[in-house]
C-alpha cells in the first residue's frame, strides 16, 4: 500500500512523468488508481474490449501474444495505451510474472489526461518512437 505522497515520490523518477512539478504529480496520484495483480494474473486480455492504461510501479509483466511470450515489462514501463489510442481491443495479454503493482487510468480518461499534460504526451510519443525504431530494426 502506498499513500498518494509515497506514489508521488515513486513516479517522480519515471521518464513518463519526468517533466511534471510536484502539484501535477499529486494530481496524477489522485487521478490514477493503484491496483495490485497476483503472480500469474492477467492484467490485459488479448481481444477483450474496454481495457485501461497501466504504469508499472513494482514487479514484472510479460507481453503474451497467442500464448507466446514476446517481451517483458518492469518498473516505470507502461502499457495499454496503443489499444486505447486506436479504440481497439489489446492485441496481447499482459500477465503478471511476479506480483505487479500498477497505476491504472481508465481508457476514456486517457485522452483528457494527455491533453491536460502535454509533457506526458511528449514523453509517451518518445517511447512510441523508440518502440517503432526497434520494430523497424528487427524487420530490416
Amino acid at each position: 500500500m502506498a499513500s498518494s505522497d509515497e506514489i508521488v515520490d515513486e513516479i517522480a523518477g519515471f521518464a513518463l512523468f519526468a517533466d511534471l512539478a510536484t502539484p501535477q504529480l499529486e494530481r496524477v496520484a489522485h487521478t490514477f488508481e493503484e491496483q495490485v495483480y497476483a503472480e500469474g494474473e492477467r492484467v490485459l486480455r488479448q481481444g477483450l474490449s474496454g481495457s485501461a492504461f497501466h504504469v508499472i510501479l513494482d514487479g514484472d509483466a510479460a507481453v503474451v501474444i497467442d500464448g507466446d511470450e514476446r517481451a517483458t515489462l518492469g518498473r516505470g514501463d507502461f502499457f495499454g495505451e496503443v489499444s486505447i489510442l486506436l479504440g481497439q481491443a489489446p492485441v496481447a495479454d499482459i500477465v503478471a510474472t511476479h506480483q505487479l503493482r500498477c497505476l491504472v487510468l481508465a481508457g476514456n480518461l486517457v485522452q483528457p489526461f494527455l491533453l491536460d499534460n502535454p509533457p506526458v504526451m511528449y514523453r509517451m510519443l518518445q517511447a512510441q518512437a523508440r518502440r517503432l525504431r526497434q520494430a523497424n530494426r528487427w524487420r530490416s
Partner: protein
Amino acid sequence: MAELTDRPFPPGSYPVIVVGSGPGGLQVSYSLSRYGIGHAVLSADEAPGGMFRRWPFFQRLLSWTKPYAPVPHDHPAYQRYDWNSLLADEPENQAIMPGLMDGNSYFPSRPEMQQNLETFASRTGIAIRHGCRWTGTRREPAAGGGEEFVVETSDGEYRAPIVILAVGVAEPAVPDTPGIELATHYAGTRPAETYADRRVFIIGKQNSGFELASGLLQWARTITLASPSPAKLSVNTKSLVGVRARYVQPVEDHVLGGGVTILDAAIGRIGRREGGGFEVVARPTAGGDEMLFEVDEVIAATGFRAPLVDLPGLGVTTFGQSRLPAVTPYWESASVPGLFFGGTLSQAAGGLKKHGLPANSGAVHGARYNARVLVRRIAETRFDRAQAKERPAVAADSLVDWMATAMMSASELFHQRAYLARVVSLDASAGPRDEGVVPLAAFVDGTGSDGDGDAIAVTLEADGSGAIYPVVYARRGGRLEEVTFDPDPLLRYDTPVVRARLADLVGAS
C-alpha cells in the same frame, strides 16, 4: 438485549468464522446457513447494521429503494429498483426495505436502513456474538492437519480453517499533509448547527466531502472544497463513479458565485492562526501561485481504510488509498489462502473494470450478490456440498430463452455489470448446464466454477455512454469471443432481433 451469558459462539473451534455484522456479514451468514455450514459471527458492535448504525453523517442514504417500481416486489427484477434489501430465498424475507420507508424520500433514512438490516437479521435467525472485537490473527497447525486461523478477540481465541472478514472500510484515512492533525476527519464532524457562520475548508472532493458541503450550505459562512484532481460528477461519468446527484448543489453554488469555492489544488500545509482559526496553504494543480485560506474549520473528507488489524503482518498485500486486500476473483486473499473478504471489502476484487467502470461491490446492491457467489464457492470447494455442485440441465431448445431471461431480469447482472455473469456450460456429453453466477474475470480466464470448457456467459455492461447493454462471451475450444449487443434505451433485450442473434450464437456452439 441478551444477557452476556446468553451470547452465542463462545471462543472455540468453528468450521467458518465471519467477522462483522453489517450488511456484508449478515448476507454471508445467511448464505452459509442456507448451505448448512456452521459458523460463528463475531462483531465489535452492539447491534447489527455496521456503518449504517452511524453514517451517512446527514442521516440519509445514497442508495435508493423504490417502493413503487415497474415490477412488483415479488418479481426477480424488483431488486434492480431496491438497492438496500438483503437477499433471501424465502418470499417473506425479501424486499424488506420498501416496507419500512416513511415516504419522505426514495433514499431511505439511516435509521430506516438500520431497521431494514436488524429486521433481516431477526427474521432470518442470524445469530451474532456482539461486543466481541477482533484484535489479532495467527496461523497455526490444525489438529487434523493443514493450517488454521486463530482469530484473537476481546472475548478469547477462535479457531477456523476459513475466515470471512466483512469489517467494512471504516477506519478514517488521512493524508500525510503537514498539520493534518489540526483537521477533523469526516468521522468526527460535529452537528451541523455548530458550523453556523463559520468558514469551513473541506479537504476532499468525493461524496463524503460533497455530502458535508451540501449539509452545511445553510450554516457555513463560506465553504471551500479542495483536492488535487477535479471533482467527477456521476451525471457526467454516467455511472456511480463520482459525486452523486444528491450532493451536486454545492457545484451550482460555486458556479453561481454563492460562497462555495471548489478548487483543484494540492494541500501544502495546515497551520494554526494566532487569535484562533487555521490557515491552509493550497497549490493549484494547474499551476500558478500558492493560495492562503484563513478559515475556522478544516475537515478531512479524505476517505476510509479497511481496518485489517494485523493482516498485513500475516502476509496480506494491500493496495490503494483504502488499503484494500489483494484478492482473487472469488474474494480470497491472493497471498493467504483461506482468508476471504465480504461486504464492501469485496470491492477488493476489481474485476475487469471494462471502460474504467467499477462494479458496485462497495455498495450493498453489489456486495449482496458477491456474498452468494463467495459462499457457494466455499460450499463447493471446501465443504463438498451437493447443493453447491448442482448444475441443472438446460434444454437445448430453451437456451435462447435462458439467455434472454438473464438479460431481462437477472438482478446480479444488472447491478454487477461486466463483473458477474450467468453461465451455461456446453459440454457435448453432459448437454447444456446452468452453471449459475460466475465472476466474469474468472470466466474469461477459465478459472471459474464452470471450468474452462465450452460455455457461454451472459452479462450486462456499460461503457460510460449512459447505455446498459448485454454482452455475451462464448468460449469454444479455449478461444473466447466477445459479442456486444446494441443498447436499447428501454432495456428491452427479449426482442426477435436479439433472440435471432442469440440463436446464431447457440447454433454455432
